């Protein structure tokens, strides 16, 4: 039935595991009527259509020739798909004062370096918060939870004053450092690290394992789903940033700026705008798909108790 169930079962009873692969494995919990399953499936498909509609519309719009964009009454789907919008996008991009590659480099640099640093910083902080005893641990944790509430949108004005005073305006650091200061990743890592059994840590301590090795060799591999999830969140957040708040120098701005510039041209540019939007949404979705399979696999294994 479910592959995960099979994996769990075969891991629990290795002797029977092989046999179970041939027979149909029966889920031990309650089963639903066939009609109910179909009804839920149809319901989920309807909601799914609503969820992906804007993305599908973006793809469709990017493939429409100019006469179909102005067609009345408008049609959702494209009749004669063309790559004109992508050619137009390349032309528009080449006419820009700052080369396109520069925006691309800025976005990639900030997204990759920022994500890497945040994973290290957040997991380091999560280790003592979940597995070490220290004074004021409870208070520190409480502050971290409260701080999740304060999104950058809310603290933006005073943050601006501080970043300006530190002389970080127009630097990559003005984008990366505030991300390293968000407590949400620390909270996420802590919640998952708590599930690492204390017996494993005690056993390693008896073997003379130090804190650093404990963290890099024992804890981190065991919380793989958590940091993979964190990679997705952070990468996507940084990839979608324009840098508009702290960056006024055009050569340091990020890729979504290009989208804003092109789509501000009105309906005639909506095709080219959709083409840029399409290219922008490919990296985070790809990163998610790659990491998602790992998350699910690791989760299935972590389900064995």
């Amino acid at each position, binding site marked *: 039935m479910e592959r*995960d169930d099979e994996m769990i079962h075969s891991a629990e009873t290795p002797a029977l595991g092989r046999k179970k692969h041939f027979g149909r494995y029966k889920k031990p919990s309650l089963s639903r009527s066939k009609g109910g399953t179909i009804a839920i*499936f149809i319901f989920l498909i309807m909601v799914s259509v609503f969820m992906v509609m804007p993305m599908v519309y973006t793809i469709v719009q990017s493939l429409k020739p100019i006469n179909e964009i102005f067609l009345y*009454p408008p049609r959702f789907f494209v009749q004669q798909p063309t790559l004109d919008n992508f050619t137009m996008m390349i032309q528009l991009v080449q006419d820009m004062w700052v080369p396109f590659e520069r925006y691309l480099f800025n976005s990639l640099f900030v997204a990759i370096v920022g994500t890497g640093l945040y994973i290290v910083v957040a997991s380091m902080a999560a280790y003592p918060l979940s597995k070490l005893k220290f004074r004021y*641990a409870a208070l520190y944790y409480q502050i971290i939870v409260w701080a999740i509430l304060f999104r950058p949108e809310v*603290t933006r004005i005073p943050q601006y*004053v501080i970043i300006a005073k530190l002389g970080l305006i127009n630097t990559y650091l003005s984008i990366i450092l505030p991300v390293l200061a968000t407590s949400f990743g620390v909270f*996420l890592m802590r919640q998952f690290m708590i*599930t690492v059994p204390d017996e494993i840590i005690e056993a390693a301590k008896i073997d003379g394992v130090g804190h650093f090795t404990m963290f890099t060799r024992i804890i981190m591999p065991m919380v793989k789903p958590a940091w993979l999830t964190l990679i997705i969140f952070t990468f*996507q957040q940084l990839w979608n940033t324009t840098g508009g708040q702290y960056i006024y120098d055009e050569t340091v701005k990020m890729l979504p700026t290009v989208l804003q510039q092109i789509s501000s041209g009105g309906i005639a540019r909506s095709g080219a705008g959709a083409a840029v939007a399409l290219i922008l949404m490919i990296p985070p979705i790809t990163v998610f798909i790659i990491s998602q399979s790992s998350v*699910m696999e690791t989760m299935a294994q972590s389900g064995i108790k």
Partner: protein
Amino acid sequence: MSAVQSDIKTARKVRRKPSFLKENGPALVFLAPFTLFFFVFTILPILTSIFFSFTYFNMLEPPRLIGFTNYIRMFFDDDVFLIALKNTLIFAFITGPLGYTLSFLFAWLINEFRRGVRSLLTLIFYSPVLAGNVYFIWVFMFSGDAYGLINSTLIKLSLIKEPIQWLTDPKYNFTVVTLVILWLSMGAGFLAFVAGLQSLDRSLFEAGTIDGIKNRFQELWYITLPQMGPQLLFGAVMSIAGAFAVGYESMSITGFPSTDYSTHTLVLHILDFGNMRFEMGYASAVAVFLFALMLLAWWIVSKTLSKLTD
């Protein structure tokens, strides 16, 4: 005094009273990098905005203390603030609990399917958040002229005769923004729910069947939810943070300022006074008020959840 004796003495001293550093050293080392960034870019902004809220500050002159004037102005001399407050509360009450419940509901339903289907559905539900800037496409779909996808469809079906001004008519634009925000609400909380439901202790479900659990809803209430404590709490923080931060989405969908401030929120009010009029003191006062609202919401929700999952 021989060396051995003094060694014993120090050893005793250490045993009797371990120093603060010896006890907390490793924890402090691991916490240090994050704490530095966290203090400078998260805690300090919150503290300084509390200070600025009692001043007149325009970024050019040094801040001048003016007591509670900013707070008094908010409630007695700024009608737009009251509209923003009302809108923020309505958005928060609708999109917060609804988005949260829907996230859990969909995660729960998705969890029943086999691996491949589950991964695909998770991707589909999370894709609006992944796609990030794509929500501007809703503007084309809800466009106010007859070219808009929604208008033209409704006209074709003869449900309406004249195109509706979805984005500028105060009768409709609030609903449109709510819809888009709900569409964006399957975020981090939703993923935590999907992952959490996967890692539940299965033996408890078997035990439940033996103990007389009769249907899926009983199973959900008595077995699943109590185990989901950490994830439910995480989802709650995320949705409170999101529900009160509504603003930038509404700005790119309905414009700034929206017709009669119909979708104006506190976040936009802060932006208006902070970034455009450079009245940092007043903007900070509105921000501090928003912080207080969020902490209050968090206090109520965490109390309720801890009762539910105990």
